[in-house]
């Protein structure tokens, strides 16, 4: 959204320079979050000498990178006015399907492709129930969350699949590095940057904003809103499929119980990053900042060895504080 406004604002204040850039930055939706995260970073680097090390940064990034891909899908879905509670189960199902296929002799690349296709199919089914039958995303994805988890259990008998025999070139996706940068993070960055660009700049994704902002007005602008919602729902599940495959390559196993409660984390990240639960607004960049914030808090608590009984309380309070501060900053600015 910020991008649409900026040029016009720029025109009225053609004077350039650092001050102008700063002003524009301050007006951006994401600035509040960046400030909060920076504050945390500064505090943490005083609190722990290990915080600002390359290894720690890398480990923190690895911890949120794959979930970040799901956050991208969820953010786009939220913008279109939907929500998906099934992301955790579907991610687990992606691991299980690919794992089972691999164990039954399919080569891992084909297995992954089939698995991602299956997840896409699940998303399409949800999209069908939402757009054709007319049910609410919440209830459809809740049902699918239960069904997909059941399918995971059915496929594995509840036991994790050991996929230690995955070929090294496949494991490379999850465990390898190109230079010093882990492949996982490269994939994550590619997904984030491309979707962020598309969402801000392409006509195709602009329709997602229109649909989420006012579905009726979008229909009255000739947009096939049902198709848009169908596609965003499908995309979200497809990205869960991708995330599941990466997790599988990373951990060398497929866990039927993986990702329980992931949906709340992912939605929280998107919302912290400015996505509206009633649709029509949000950015990938913001949502990823939200993910980073949650992840930095978790890592910091672990690094400081805070008592486990206090961790939840602190985590919840920081979540509440961050959203409040962000809200306050945005209200003042806008």
């Amino acid at each position, binding site marked *: 959204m910020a991008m649409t406004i900026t040029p016009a604002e720029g025109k009225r204040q053609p004077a350039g320079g650092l001050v102008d850039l700063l002003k524009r930055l301050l007006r951006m939706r994401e600035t509040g979050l960046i400030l909060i995260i920076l504050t945390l970073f500064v505090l943490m680097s005083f609190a722990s000498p290990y915080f600002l090390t390359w290894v*720690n940064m890398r480990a923190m990034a690895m*911890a949120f990178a794959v979930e970040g891909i799901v956050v991208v899908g969820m953010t786009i879905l939220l913008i279109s006015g939907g929500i998906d509670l099934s992301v955790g189960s579907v991610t687990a199902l992606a691991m299980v399907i690919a794992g089972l296929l691999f164990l039954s002799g399919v080569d891992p690349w084909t297995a992954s492709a089939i698995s991602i296709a299956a997840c896409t199919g699940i998303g399409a089914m949800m999209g069908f129930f939402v757009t054709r039958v007319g049910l609410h995303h919440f209830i459809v994805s809740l049902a699918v969350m239960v069904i997909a988890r059941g399918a995971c259990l059915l496929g594995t008998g509840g036991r994790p699949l050991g996929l230690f025999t995955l070929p090294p070139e496949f494991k490379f996706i999850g465990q390898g590095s190109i230079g010093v940068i882990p492949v996982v993070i490269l994939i994550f960055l590619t997904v984030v940057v491309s979707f962020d660009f598309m969402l801000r700049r392409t006509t195709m994704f602009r329709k997602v904003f229109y649909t989420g902002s006012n579905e009726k007005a979008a229909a009255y602008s000739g947009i096939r809103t049902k198709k848009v919602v169908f596609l965003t729902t499908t995309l979200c599940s497809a990205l869960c499929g991708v995330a599941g495959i990466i997790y599988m390559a990373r951990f060398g196993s497929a866990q039927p119980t993986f990702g329980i409660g992931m949906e709340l984390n992912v939605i929280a990240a998107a919302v912290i990053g400015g996505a509206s639960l009633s649709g029509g607004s949000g950015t990938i960049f913001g949502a990823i900042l939200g993910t980073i914030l949650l992840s930095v808090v978790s890592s910091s608590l*672990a690094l400081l060895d805070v008592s486990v009984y206090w961790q939840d309380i602190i985590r919840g309070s920081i979540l509440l504080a961050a959203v409040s501060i962000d809200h306050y900053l945005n209200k003042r600015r806008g």
Partner: protein
Amino acid sequence: GESKFQCEPGETYIMNVMVSAHPYWVPVYQGFKQAAEAMGCETVFSGTPDYDITKQIASFEQDLVKQPAGILLHPMQSDPFIEPIDRAIESGVEVVTFAADSPNSKRTGYITSDNLAEAKFAAEEIVKQIGDSGEYAVLENPGQSNHDLRVTALISYMEENYPNMKLVGRQATNQDSNAAYRATASILQANPNLGALWIPEAGSAEGAVAAVLEAEADVLIMHADITPTTLEHIKAGNIHMALNPNQGMQGFMGFVATFMAAHPDMFDPFNDYKVSGYNPMQIPFVDNGFAVITKENAASFDLNTYMEGRDPS
């Protein structure tokens, strides 16, 4: 004459659990079934797929409707089950608990792994491997009693016996491998001299191994329970050792105890049961023991191999 260790036709025993899809129950139920088959009894596996006490109680009460001879029960929480267990026994259905207890109820027996023994074994092994003055950390899963016990018992054993062992990290990861990855990575960061890591379950172990391997740290990992992935890590030497309760024995002994509770007339002990009116087949505590899984014997613990040709339910 015919053995008294034999069922009437149709005599049924039920095994009731929570989170019934959890793979832990599979070998337990196999042991339960093997004992039952040996004695000509029928078995049913029951419970709730949810982690929800009210649902487990409801499923337990529904089991009662069917009037089985006995129920081998894993009560999700001890006290909430007092009333249902006592009611079951009043209505003629005998109850034995396993892996978690309801000590204040009238259940006749309790079969379990000795988590204290596991913790003690783990502590001794850690000291044996890294010496008695090093740094160690634990991951935990607060709220689940057997996991809690494995962690707290190890910590207090270390404090009492090896005061130079320093606990440098204690993180809740709740069986989530990604959370375990994150926590372990942080612990490794904060404690470059970390020598050992004790994890009370296998899900977190998977994430912890990934973090240790990535950091190329030299940390001794020990955990309880197993998954195929941790088995492979044990084979590869990434995990030093796992302790696994003898699940089959738990189920087998569980059945025998339940059967005996349902046939108290077989036995006339030297005590006051007739006067006081309680079931003479009281078995306050049976330890089903645990197995130590290392590189050498890991292959024997592949559940899929074990289950081949068996009826999964």
